[in-house]
């Protein structure tokens, strides 16, 4: 299978797929293309479906590929759907951030940080398949441990958890300083 045909075949598969298409599946579905040709085709497609002047972008989510609309056209696409933007509420977003950065985490731990009952938001988040129970803590009452799902990666267009946004330097620095100070004060008390 030559490069041009491989590119076209991948285009067709990506249009027809019912969700992100795992790269491994791609190789299965195109057995006549050599790994090298596949790589070349993907490189071509990544370059081709990208940038401000394209309406379709090829994105990588959790080891899978998907065509998505360029975020710049979100208002136009929403107008077509005649829908309001779906927004996670602030409490949901906070809870999700805690789960994402601290997983595995129990509900009690989340509530300790947030200071409010979080059972409702956790339920909403699992209804949306953004978080799920990934185990139980070996502790009194064996509380459930929550983690993020594959859908979470898909939702935020992340390749993996390592791609989670980090605090920028000044933010991280401020927080670090604050913690240091807190520790120092905890050790020596205040004058």
């Amino acid at each position, binding site marked *: 299978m030559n490069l041009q045909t491989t590119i076209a075949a991948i285009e067709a598969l990506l249009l027809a797929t*019912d969700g992100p298409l795992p790269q491994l599946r791609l190789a299965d579905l195109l057995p006549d293309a050599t790994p090298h040709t596949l790589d070349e085709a993907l490189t071509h497609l990544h370059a081709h479906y990208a940038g401000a002047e394209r309406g379709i972008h090829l994105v990588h989510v959790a080891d899978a590929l998907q065509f998505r609309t360029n975020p710049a056209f979100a208002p136009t696409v929403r107008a077509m759907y005649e829908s309001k933007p779906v927004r996670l509420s602030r*409490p949901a977003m906070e809870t999700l951030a805690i789960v994402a950065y601290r997983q595995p985490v129990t509900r009690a731990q989340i509530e300790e940080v947030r200071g409010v*009952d979080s059972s409702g*938001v956790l*339920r909403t988040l699992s209804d949306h398949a953004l978080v799920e129970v990934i185990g139980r803590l070996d502790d009194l009452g064996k509380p459930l441990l929550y983690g993020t799902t594959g859908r979470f990666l898909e939702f935020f267009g992340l390749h993996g958890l390592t791609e989670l946004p980090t605090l920028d330097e000044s933010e991280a620095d401020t927080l670090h300083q*604050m913690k240091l100070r*807190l520790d120092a004060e905890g050790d020596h008390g205040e004058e």
Partner: protein
Amino acid sequence: MKIAQPRQVPHELQLDLPAFSGPIDLLLELIRKHELDIFDIPIALITTEYLAYVDAMPTLDLQTGGEWLEMAATLVHIKSKMLLPPDPTTEEEPDGPDPREELVQRLIEYQMYKLMAEKLDDRPQLARDVFAAPSRAAQYLLDVGPPTLREATIEDLVKALQRVIQRHENKPNWVYEITREKLTLRHLILEIAALLRDTPRLPFEALFENTELSRHRVVTTFLALLEMTRLKMIKLFQARLTEDVLYIERSVIDIVEISQSLELQ
């Protein structure tokens, strides 16, 4: 269709507190507003403002606003501790731990996740900022039949139902407008109709397979069968060879539709 309100902030409070997702969030905002040093919070000022805020909440009771009151209590407690002279009868050093320390720790930690949440929120989100091609499966199904499904067990199905049920158990506002007996009859007719939809003829025993056998159920099943016979929806008959088997046969095509529209008095 009803959209569930986020539960962690009670509905009544949410009206007045759109900006704060909880007491810690409110405290952070008060600190920001007054440009206070988080390590040296004037606890009297903050407590007064916090209480004023909580006081302004339209309806606050222990059920809906527990966390807000709990934080108020914590603040008042810290304030009283700071006002008291050090207790000479304890071993505590005069410059013992600052009573505000734990609160500060919580504020900092919360602040961190709040920042993370904002950053996460800034990413393009599926169905909000970016859109994928909708499923074109239907187009291809005509050719290839429905897609293969990954194995799921009946337990998965039951678990799914249990989740739904559990959610409902906390829902207070259920209306019962019709007597249980009447509905049970209707419900059983629908159940029998659903069974007959797939299999036009059923042995009587099939109606009780894998169901809890109770007197009430058996009696109601009989009533349902009689009612359905009366309405000429089904025929009852016995097999000639094995005379002990009672069969129920569907005698209309749209049995489910007909059953659904039954008016039972």
